[in-house]
């Protein structure tokens, strides 16, 4: 018994797919192929001369110990962003799901940060934590904790993780809330009648039923941490102090847009692309097995 719907015509499915294919082609495959092309070229800033250099851009990258080091920084950053982003928003979604009065207000407020541009998020958090003038930094100093992310690498990392997570929570929250609301109330009520407390109900019913959502968000958040966070780093720490917050995508941005080295920058985005593809494959092969649809 085949469950799938079959189209009788051959061109109709393609026609229906066309708009989506056009969008993906224009906004993903075309730029991605450009990146691959540029990564084997060396161009001057204005694009007046182009030279084929083969894999020289890649060789130069991996010969640089600082570039290799930034893999560790990136792994730490991405893990922190994905784990913190997912768990905090799951917690918030769980609360928002239970709220009866003023639920819309909470939900709206939680969704707001998503409308903030990453660079603005970075600036916002930098202002709050700015040593000397920032509200939070001032409060921390009153409490006897000297905050100075300009000189403390861990604090700098904490700052960009906070900004990145804050920015992404809304997105995660929306999906979790939708996921929670689609779980049949009867299941939870039945468990409650059987005497399961909220904690137990969460771990044995809601969390397993949310696993497709959680898995989807894991993939999305890792991609987000790898690709979309350069503006936050640029606004908050510029990779400093030293190289302590110089994640891979920030160097892509820096080399491409500040140092005007399109070849080197393209080579790095190809490396990033490979990493994220590999990570996604791993996630689909190993993590997805534990997901119940």
């Amino acid at each position, binding site marked *: 018994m085949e469950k799938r719907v079959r189209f009788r015509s051959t061109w109709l499915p393609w026609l229906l797919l066309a708009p989506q294919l056009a969008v993906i082609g224009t906004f993903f495959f075309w730029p991605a192929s450009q990146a691959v092309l540029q990564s084997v070229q060396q161009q*001057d800033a204005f694009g*007046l001369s182009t030279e084929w250099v083969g894999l020289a851009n890649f060789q130069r990258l991996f010969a640089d110990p600082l570039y290799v080091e930034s893999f560790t920084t990136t792994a730490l950053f991405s893990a922190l962003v994905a784990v913190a982003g997912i768990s905090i928003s799951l917690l918030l979604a769980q609360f928002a799901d239970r709220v009866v009065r003023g639920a819309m207000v909470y939900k709206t407020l939680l969704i707001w940060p998503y409308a903030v541009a990453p660079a603005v998020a970075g600036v916002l958090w930098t202002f709050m934590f700015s040593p*000397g003038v920032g509200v939070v930094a001032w409060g921390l100093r009153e409490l006897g904790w000297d905050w100075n992310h300009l000189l403390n690498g861990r604090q700098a990392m904490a700052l960009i993780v906070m900004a990145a997570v804050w920015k992404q929570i809304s997105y995660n929250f929306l999906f979790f809330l939708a996921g929670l609301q689609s779980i049949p109330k009867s299941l939870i009520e039945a468990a409650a009648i059987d005497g399961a407390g909220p904690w137990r109900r969460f771990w044995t019913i809601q969390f397993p039923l949310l696993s497709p959502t959680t898995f989807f968000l894991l993939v999305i958040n890792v991609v987000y941490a790898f690709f979309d966070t350069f503006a936050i780093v640029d606004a908050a720490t*510029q990779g400093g102090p030293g190289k302590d917050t110089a994640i891979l995508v920030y160097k892509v941005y820096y080399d491409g847009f*500040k140092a005007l080295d399109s070849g080197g920058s393209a080579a790095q985005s190809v490396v990033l692309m490979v990493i994220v593809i590999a990570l996604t494959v791993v996630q689909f092969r190993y993590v997805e097995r534990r997901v119940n649809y």
Partner: protein
Amino acid sequence: MNKTCAFALATLAAALSLPAHAQTEIQWWHAMSGPLGEWVNDLAKQYNASQTDYKVVPTYKGTYDESMTAAIAAFRAGNAPHILQVFEVGTATMMASKGAIKPVADVMKESGAKFDPKAYVPAVAGYYTAPDGRMLSLPFNSSTTIFYYNKDAFKAAGLDPNKAPATWPEVALAAAKLKASGHRCPFTTSWISWTQLESFSAWHNTLFATLNNGFGGTGARLAFNTPLHLRHFENLANMSKQGLFIYKGRGNAADVSFPSGECAMMTGSSGLYSRVAKEAKFAYGIAALPYYPDVPGAPQNTVIGGASLWVMAGKKAPEYKGVASFFTFLSNAEVQSASHKRTGYLPITTAAYELTEKSGFYKDKPGTDVAVTQMIRKTTDKSRGIRLGNFVQIRTIVDEETEQIWTGKKTAKEALDTAVQRGNEQLERFQAANK
């Protein structure tokens, strides 16, 4: 009802037909924000009001590197602006991009404008002149590094508010007194590489890079790990440890902390003057950059920063005529002098300097002549300026490495040595790419 309608139409028609001949628009992309952005807009307004043939349209395109990136993207797409403001570290990149730019000397010559390169202050114009003597870009907002201090804070700390510390040992002493009086940030600096290495080197008549700081060719290599540089950074490291020097971040991030009163002493751009004059709610003083008195030849002169105006290639002849006319306007001694007084940027022509001096401005506002007198001196081969490829990256490398001195991860020697070594890799690449 009908009458009003007809009248409105008539006015509209009149308004539309008013410009008897079409004005040629000159696009000017710049990176000046705040009071400096107002200054740029006023310059364009003043020029547009002075004649009817051309209309200069200034557009703010973000920070220096953002506006440069924007112009490069626009150039690749075939709609670059006519005039682009480029900061001094982008100079080598622009010079190397021969097909993208049109030398100012050529623009002036072809349009028949009166143009005498000798009218420009040598220390400023020399920076933007090709080895063959052609001026490539027009010096626009040239600044140099100077020393600002808070006179009120000096008074409170028991220091003489009318005597700025002239040497680095005096800066350290003053900082200690300021700290003892309860000041949280006695000394800070913006632009670490520019103030503490580039200007510092020229000020002490020492090379920042070999081959006369890159003026002698692309084979130049960094040389800022000499005992003198080391000694200075060890001093700064000690000051940082004792809370006398407070690091405020890269680039000009520290700028805000002087006019706000947070930091009592600061080395920064002379272009910060307009902001200090506008925002500081305390008595402030401006002085020459501190130096080490036992170094022979110090103080020499400081190097310029700021930006110049580049003319992009591939435009029509009448448009270049407009650019030339606008540049002639900008070089006018009165316009120059007014800009200099307003912003603290250096006058780019000797005539403008003399005019400002005659007007009694330097006497009325003591300290405003510091930047000029630091610059208008006979320069040496070691102090003329710095022209290095991949300079943007080199400055970032200096930021990254010196930050590790303040965090205590590296000694001054380790940091400067690594910075030289990493910076040299950039210079080698530039040399290989621009044979």
